[in-house]
């Protein structure tokens, strides 16, 4: 048997063993398999503190290369946006710490890896989003926030890991079940994503006509109410290309809410809006949430929005959560990156490159 084969056999055997088995512990002591060392350390951390998420935090390999949880080597097998190929410790600020939020998780993201070509956008992402709260995922541009939303609604599937929504694994659902599950969702896209061939009224009525047996009178009363809520009561028959960006967003919001979804997601609702309209949209989100409840998730990098509406904040960077927890605790965090980002400080780990 060649050396290579021996190594592979050893690796296979070790991977099959339970993570806390004596064989694995021995392997850790001998520093034979860096991947196993990482898993055991992560498991120990999880045991040590209940408030710490079960995220697997990678450590630099003895060889000086950064090895991800799936054995892929940074620089050789993949690149991470914003990380130099030779960086052997890109996650030194990522504690993965999840502070207690006092609710159950409606959405769980478990060790999700997503790579496009050689670019890895999500790299072992772990996140839980509480039910009946407004959660906010904050992070610098290009860290995978929109990709995360697309995984939750099943528009993208993870290369590895799992996405669990209300106890159902999204990647395991059949097409029919997935379309059924999506009726629980409302999603406000960045630009509203209104159907260009329909006027505003028909756009908002579309989900009701597709998925309910309601008559046109009932549909009209629901649509009119929702449009009035978002301040578009007089714009029923305007086409999307006749509206400003802010109006399109508000119309998209009305459409997202029209089926009274259990989970509502907002992809940068504040982008391209003036401060007053941003504040008004935030108030609207809070009001609707207070009225109907459910799991709301807002993706943004606007700190004003975070302060105004968030109950729970998760900070995403380099495809992983740095820290997550209730808003007030996160704003007081002593984590260097979280502190820099939430205080908009120019000094800290995040630089222009």
């Amino acid at each position, binding site marked *: 048997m060649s050396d290579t084969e021996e190594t592979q056999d050893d690796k296979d055997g070790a991977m099959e063993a339970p993570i806390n088995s004596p064989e694995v512990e021995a392997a850790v002591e001998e520093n034979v398999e860096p991947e196993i060392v990482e898993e055991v350390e992560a498991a120990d951390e999880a045991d040590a503190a209940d408030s710490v998420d079960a995220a697997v935090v990678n450590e630099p390999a003895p060889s000086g290369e950064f090895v991800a949880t799936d054995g892929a080597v940074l620089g050789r097998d993949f690149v991470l946006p914003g990380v130099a190929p030779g960086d052997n410790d890109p996650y030194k600020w990522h504690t993965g710490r999840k502070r207690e939020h006092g609710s159950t998780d409606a959405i769980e993201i478990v060790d999700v890896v997503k790579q496009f070509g050689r670019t890895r956008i999500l790299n072992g992402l772990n996140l839980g989003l509480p039910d009946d709260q407004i959660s906010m995922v904050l992070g610098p541009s290009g860290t995978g926030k929109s990709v995360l939303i*697309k995984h939750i*609604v*099943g*528009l993208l599937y993870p290369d590895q890991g799992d996405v669990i929504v209300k106890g159902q694994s999204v990647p395991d659902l059949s*097409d029919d079940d997935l*379309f*059924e599950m*999506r*009726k629980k*969702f409302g*999603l406000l*896209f*960045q*630009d509203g*994503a*209104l*159907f*260009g061939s329909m006027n505003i009224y028909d756009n908002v009525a*579309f*989900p009701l006509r*597709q*998925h309910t047996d309601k008559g046109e009178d009932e549909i009209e009363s629901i649509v009119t109410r929702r449009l009035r809520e978002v301040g578009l009561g007089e714009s029923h028959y305007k086409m999307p290309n006749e509206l400003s960006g802010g109006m399109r967003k508000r119309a998209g919001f009305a*459409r997202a809410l029209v089926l009274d979804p259990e989970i509502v997601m907002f992809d940068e609702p504040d982008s391209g809006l003036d401060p007053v309209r941003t504040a008004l949209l935030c108030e609207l989100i809070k009001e609707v949430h207070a009225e109907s409840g459910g799991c709301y998730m807002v993706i943004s990098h606007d700190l004003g929005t975070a302060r105004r509406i968030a109950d729970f904040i998760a900070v995403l960077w380099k495809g992983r959560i740095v820290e997550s927890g209730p808003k007030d605790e996160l704003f007081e965090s002593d984590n260097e990156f979280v502190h820099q980002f939430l205080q908009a400080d120019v000094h800290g780990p995040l630089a222009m490159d």
Partner: protein
Amino acid sequence: MVKATATKAIEPAKEFFTEAGEMMILTGRTVMSAVKPPYPYGNEFIGQFLFALQLCWFPMLVSCVAFGFGAPGLQAANFLSLFGALDRLGGFFVLASIREFAPFVTAVVVAGVAGTAITADLGARKIREELDALQVLGVDPIKNLVVPRFLALMLITGMLDIYALLFGIAGGIGAELLYAQPLGGFFATLFSNASTTELAASVLKCTLFGAIIAIVCCYKGMTATGGAAGVGRAVNEAVVTALLGVFIFNYLFTQTMLATNPDLQTIK
């Protein structure tokens, strides 16, 4: 160095086979979606059919008359006049127009006019995230957008094949008249060589051209990336890929048809 060169050489082939595979999967899902209830695509199907008809009827008329008159008409008549056999032009039109030129012109016009419109429409929807929005609203874009376009283009290409045959033959009649020939010989050889098998194969082939064009154009539109420039690129790729697919399929279909019906090769 060697690895990098090999990767560069393999990458385009890998991309080609990946795209071809994804188009096959889209075809399978479209057919399954078309036959599996519910059937919410009736209005969209009628809309797409009328849209394609509205776009294609005039370009088809001009192309078929001009093509029939010019290529098989004047060129073949010029050649046949050497032998004093201009009456054989009708028989030649069976080979030329029914078997090849009518489906060819139909495919080119439908791909260039209706196919590109489909790619541009779906590509713009993809870029504006409308397709994602549809899916998030629990609506299957294959059933609601691809299936009606697939069925409409199949039906329209099959019907336009007959239209192309008629106007193509009109071009042939024009050529015959230009050579001051009586039309009796033209029609005699046309009908002695024509057969229902030939006609049915032509319509079937053209209908399947419509399926290829619809799948390629829908696929390219639904996978467009890169903003407005990306939509333009998708349209360009769609028409080139659709026509390549049509030509390859045409060769395979015609060869299979002639091999299984050897009597069609006999010139009467």
